[in-house]
């Protein structure tokens, strides 16, 4: 067990996800512990991103519940949800920076919405956050002027603007070159260890799974749920399920 802390802070219980009549996930249950780097793995179309969208409350599940830090977000009212959301940061796959705003404006948006800090202090926090992701000085640049890796990091700075307790990443390494991806790994690890943020990743990037993943679950579309859990090393070395082996050894089914 890589993480010594086993206090569950995110609990997913009997989650069933449906789009119309099509069931994507059936009766999925797992827990995420405080401060760990937890990964949701699986091939394309297995429902990873759908699961993530349920965990951050973008979609309500058909059945089951998602509890974040003691709050059942599937039943919470708008006000409670708003409060929980201020403690959640999400880095979307396509960075989702607002193209019409500079980096500083992007990062200061949640600060201006959720806090009553004066503008000078917000500017200072923004400078600090951009420094955290090695983008110091890029305050007035527009997202379109940056490279893919820089945009990812800027997205991370925005996701962390409020010092969230939970950070969710949707395929953070997609479209990054290996060097930039490795730099992002280092950054994520230092943020996780330095700030103690609980991190949940949705990914299929083997290199980063092994370098960052502490506990993982693997989804598969045939069972519409979890087929394996454990550390990445355990799954690679001890799993007898051919689907898991193929995934970890990058083989065709």
């Amino acid at each position, binding site marked *: 067990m890589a993480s010594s802390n086993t206090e569950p802070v995110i609990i997913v219980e009997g989650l069933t996800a449906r789009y119309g009549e099509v069931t994507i996930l059936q009766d999925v249950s797992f827990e995420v512990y405080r401060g760990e780097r937890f990964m949701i793995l699986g091939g394309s179309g297995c429902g990873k991103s759908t699961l993530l969208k349920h965990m951050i409350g973008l979609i309500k599940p058909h059945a089951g519940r998602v509890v974040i830090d003691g709050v059942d977000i599937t039943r919470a009212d708008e006000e409670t949800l708003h409060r929980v959301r201020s403690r959640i940061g999400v880095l979307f796959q396509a960075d989702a920076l607002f*193209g019409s705003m500079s980096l500083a404006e992007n990062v200061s948006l949640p600060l201006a919405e959720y806090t009553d800090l004066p503008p000078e202090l917000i500017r200072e926090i923004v*400078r600090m956050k*951009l420094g*955290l992701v090695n983008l*110091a*000085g890029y*305050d007035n640049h527009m997202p379109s002027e940056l490279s893919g890796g820089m945009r990812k990091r800027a997205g991370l700075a925005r996701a962390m603007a409020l010092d969230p307790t939970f950070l969710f990443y949707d395929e953070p390494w997609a479209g990054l070159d290996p060097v930039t991806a490795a730099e992002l790994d280092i950054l994520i690890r*230092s943020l996780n*260890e330095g*700030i103690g943020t609980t991190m949940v990743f949705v990914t299929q990037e083997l290199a980063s799974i092994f370098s960052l993943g502490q506990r993982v679950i693997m989804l598969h579309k045939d069972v519409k749920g979890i087929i394996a859990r454990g550390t990445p090393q355990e799954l690679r070395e001890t799993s007898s399920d051919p689907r898991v082996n193929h995934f970890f050894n990058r083989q065709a089914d």
Partner: protein
Amino acid sequence: MPEMNHRGYRLHVEGAPGAQAAVRLEGRLALEDLKALMADLQAVPVKMKPREIAVDVAGVEYLDSAGAMALIEMENLSRSLGIPFELLGVSEKDHGLLCLIDREALQRPPLRPESERPAIVVRLGEVARRQYRDVLEIMTFVGELVAALAYCLVHPRSIRWEEVKFYMKRAGADGLPIVALISLLLGLIMAFMSSLQLKQFGANLYVANLVTIAMVRELGPIMTAILVAGRSGSAFAAEIGTMVVNDEVNALVTMGFDPIRFLAVPKVLAAMVVVPILTVYADFFAILGGLIVGITGLDLTAFTYIQQTKSSIRVFDFATSLVKAVVFAMLISGIGCQRGFQVRGGAEGVGMSTTSAVVSAIFLIIVADSAFAIMLHYVRH
């Protein structure tokens, strides 16, 4: 002098000016109390002016990056005032966080200064240059479009007829209800308003002439064109613009397709077919609106009204209104596609090009209509 407050943290300061200040922090040093925390911490070096400062954070239960920033800012401030600063009792985890924060980044000015409003001459120059470039781009596009249309005329099999049919339905059939409704109301209004005046002279019957001539010669083509510009010109721009943003247009080019022939020609052809038909519809419904007012409000019979309508309009007027409609259709669809291809950037670019497509189309419609008005005046006489 211990100091308490209702926040998530507790601050105890001991010491006197000129002596050592011992600051003890407990509780949560977090974003929610940042404003007060910064003020409290910075007051120590500024107001107390001690010889040296030692901050003990052993009692801190929670430290986030905002709290860490407050500590670092206090250190920076003390150092700049020449006061030695020491942080005591830092846990391993908090140490990691404090190390993460780039001290230099807090001070460093942005690489690029915040954009200032340039002088008026510079702005005027920018606008002029942009307009010039815009005109150049439009002319280039017109050339390309005409070449593509000519090519398609010679090679009719290269036209994607399925697409043409699709856009004919979108721009034409789907637009019928709104065109019919607006024209009917326009006819009603024109007939009603003019009847108030004409009644005084016993010239009720001439309401039919007024509605017909106004509608067929001028308002029919213009109203239809403006509606199509709003419905379809904008849609063309948004569709092509989004394709540009998503690299779909580049994909077409690499597959050996001419984007203009592939994307613009079907839309332009479809518009050229349906806008005249919509115009005829608009004329018909406006005349129907006039008829309703004539029968219900002016004691005219349907027969007289229709006879009067027939006598007031010439085939020439009708034909020129159709020609106008074809020209307007080319302007609307052409400018819509051109604005779409012009899109750069992301969502904002698509929005701007959509707006610009409608505004430019309406502008061009009015300019073309003025040209027609003058030309037709000399043709008629």
